[in-house]
């Protein structure tokens, strides 16, 4: 089984390639790159003229909701949403029900992924049993079962001593501890960013310091333990400054940012649209500017969506009571391409790198490059596709996006996993 992708602009940041080339995929691997390649007998030929051919995107932060919240999303629907967004691999967070804090849950998720999934699924294990922040989960067994990182995402491990021990204990596993950096004593009951908009709307605010305090703590603990700490969904200018300074000192800290924190601000909450509610909250223009700059210069290592599906009933109603989180897999590339790449703020090659090579590198995952011999996980995008984002047409189960109705240029075109086309526009 082979595919010849002909005449596309091959953009492979890991190999510093940016050229019109043909790419040959055979038996699930990248086997040849070059001009005017001959299609082997029986090969499918994809005419990719005008398209961009890049390593499959990897989203290191999604919620597949299975087991336990299948009414919001499942491995089947979540991986289809991923494929529709150009993602060939996702890492799923541990806040399922039951929590992925032991090997049987990890095994279950991986079994579902094998039988129902259309993209690669890498589970993230819980740091603490039941996400309760009290005792360590069975981290070694989770790593052995296939967890590629550890996180109590959705909650912050408030006990610094316990978190320190988690960092130390996981040192041998080459899998980072991923921090949901939020001091719950500072953010408690907050519904949005604390600022002039929260004051006007009379909604309780979450100060930027609720994040910054924990980013600072986790950097110091990384320094103390020598562990690799990854900061999830970084959202403040202050946290950017802390990470930049720590990296300059050689601390093993990495960070991700979501499309919504890059593109939206707390002003959007004035609509009372509960799709503007997530943790951390949408911040200010000063923060989005710092985040974009940090993504461009590498202070922030990668883009992750924090894809958080919720059913209508979880999101309709009062802003205070609505669930936190939004879906992101199916819109990430399109909104970032349209709002950052097209205006010239972020080079396309940088965006591709932040979506593929960089998450692969920091989680030690296969993929992220089109090196000969690598897995044939390839994303093709149409940089000229004119799209209107229509949540009703999402492949995922939930519709809770803040980007509904946006018109944009640039969209995923085909998604190839292990040499098989799993989705096409």
């Amino acid at each position, binding site marked *: 089984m082979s595919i010849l992708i002909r005449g596309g602009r091959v953009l492979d940041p890991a190999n510093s390639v940016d050229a019109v080339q043909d790419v040959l995929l055979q038996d699930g691997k990248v086997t040849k790159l070059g001009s005017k390649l001959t299609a082997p007998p029986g090969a499918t030929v994809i005419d990719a003229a005008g398209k961009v051919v890049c390593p499959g995107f990897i989203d290191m932060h999604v919620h597949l909701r299975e087991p336990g919240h299948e009414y919001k999303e499942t491995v089947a629907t979540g991986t289809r949403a991923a494929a529709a967004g150009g993602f060939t691999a996702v890492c799923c967070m541990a806040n399922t029900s039951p929590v992925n804090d032991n090997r049987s849950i990890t095994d279950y998720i991986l079994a579902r992924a094998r039988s129902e999934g259309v993209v690669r699924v890498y589970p993230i294990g819980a740091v603490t049993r039941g996400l309760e922040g009290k005792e360590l989960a069975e981290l070694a067994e989770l790593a052995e079962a296939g967890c590629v990182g550890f996180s109590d995402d959705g909650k912050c491990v408030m006990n610094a001593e316990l978190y320190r021990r988690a960092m130390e204990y996981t040192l041998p596993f080459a899998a980072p501890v991923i921090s949901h950096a939020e001091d719950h004593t500072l953010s408690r009951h907050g519904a949005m960013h*604390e*600022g*002039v908009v*929260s*004051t*006007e*709307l*009379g*909604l*309780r*605010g979450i100060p930027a310091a609720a994040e910054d305090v924990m980013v600072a703590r986790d950097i110091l603990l990384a320094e103390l333990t020598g562990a690799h700490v990854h900061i999830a969904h970084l959202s403040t200018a202050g946290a950017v400054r802390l990470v930049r300074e720590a990296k300059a000192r050689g601390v093993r800290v990495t960070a991700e940012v979501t499309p919504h924190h890059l593109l939206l601000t707390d002003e959007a909450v004035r609509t*009372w649209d509960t799709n503007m509610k997530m943790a951390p909250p949408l911040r200010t223009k000063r923060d989005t500017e710092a985040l974009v700059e940090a993504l461009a210069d590498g202070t922030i290592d990668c883009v992750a969506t924090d894809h958080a599906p919720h059913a209508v*009933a979880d999101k*309709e*109603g*009062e*802003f*205070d*009571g609505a669930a936190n989180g939004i879906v992101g897999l199916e819109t990430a590339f399109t909104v970032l391409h349209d709002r950052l790449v097209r205006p010239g703020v972020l080079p396309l090659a940088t965006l591709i790198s932040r979506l593929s090579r960089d998450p692969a590198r920091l989680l030690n995952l296969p993929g992220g490059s089109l090196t000969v011999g690598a897995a044939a996980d390839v994303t093709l995008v149409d940089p000229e596709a004119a799209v209107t984002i229509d949540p009703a047409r999402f492949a995922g189960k939930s519709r809770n996006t803040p980007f509904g109705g946006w018109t944009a240029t640039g969209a995923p075109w085909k998604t190839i996993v292990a040499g098989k086309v799993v989705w096409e526009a």
Partner: protein
Amino acid sequence: MGWTRKHLLTIRELEAAEILTLIDTAASLQEIAGREIKKVPALRGKTVVNLFYENSTRTRTSFEIAGKWLSADVINFSASGSSAAKGESFVDTARNIGAMSPDVVVVRHSASGAAALLAREMSCAIVNAGDGAHEHPTQALLDLLTIREKKGHFEGLSVAIVGDIAHSRVARSNIHGMRKLGMTVTVGGPPTLIPPYVQELGCKVAYRLDDAIRDVDVIMMLRLQQERMHAGLIPSLREYSRYWGLSLDKLRAHARPDVLIMHPGPVNRGVELSPEVADGPYSVILDQVAKGVAVRMGVLLLLAGSKSAEAA
């Protein structure tokens, strides 16, 4: 200026001329309270639903009286003793009431944005009777009407709003309304009760009571809720009352002799206001309550009355 809006959700979104239209309409309706037969047929055949998810005495009663004096059919819904007590969501309840074709829904709810949510979910006119810490537009209108009657004008007046600004929808609606009508506003209270960036709403901030009330034309004292103490925002009611309670001595020492003392109620006597001040000659607290009925009649008339006038 005519009235063209479907809903009354916030003061923030109104133009000064629209605020004056509301106040003038209310002023013209005040005489009904003095009539022997307190009933005009303006809203005959119209249905007004009072949808109250929070306890309220003044606001709910005055909306009810206002609707009845205008001959509307008024239905009172409170969250206890309804399906809300059985766990029906706010949105579901609203949709069900909407299916019964009311003309106006007056809503009070503890969540900021609740009135805007109903405006999106229901097809009738919505009046915000207080949503969380966001806005309470009819309270601001009755405050403004009271001020104009006592002072004769708005332009150039100075107002101090004192107390728990952070959790007050009354403060927010008044800040917007007063600024739009050319008044200067100072908010005063301990810093833990002053919301961040409140200056960007166009007001000044004072952290001492005497600074807040010096030389102002109007002092509006806000109710301090006991919960604030448990939330760690103030050390004790005793301390709050000592530094932020308005006594006759402090009033005489720092305020103008013709100052108006206002309070949206209910008053915690002995906490934010001493009884001599609450019941004294400076106080216009009961004038505010009386004007509440006229203001709510005006609002109901402008939202529900115009179409029937056209049809007649």
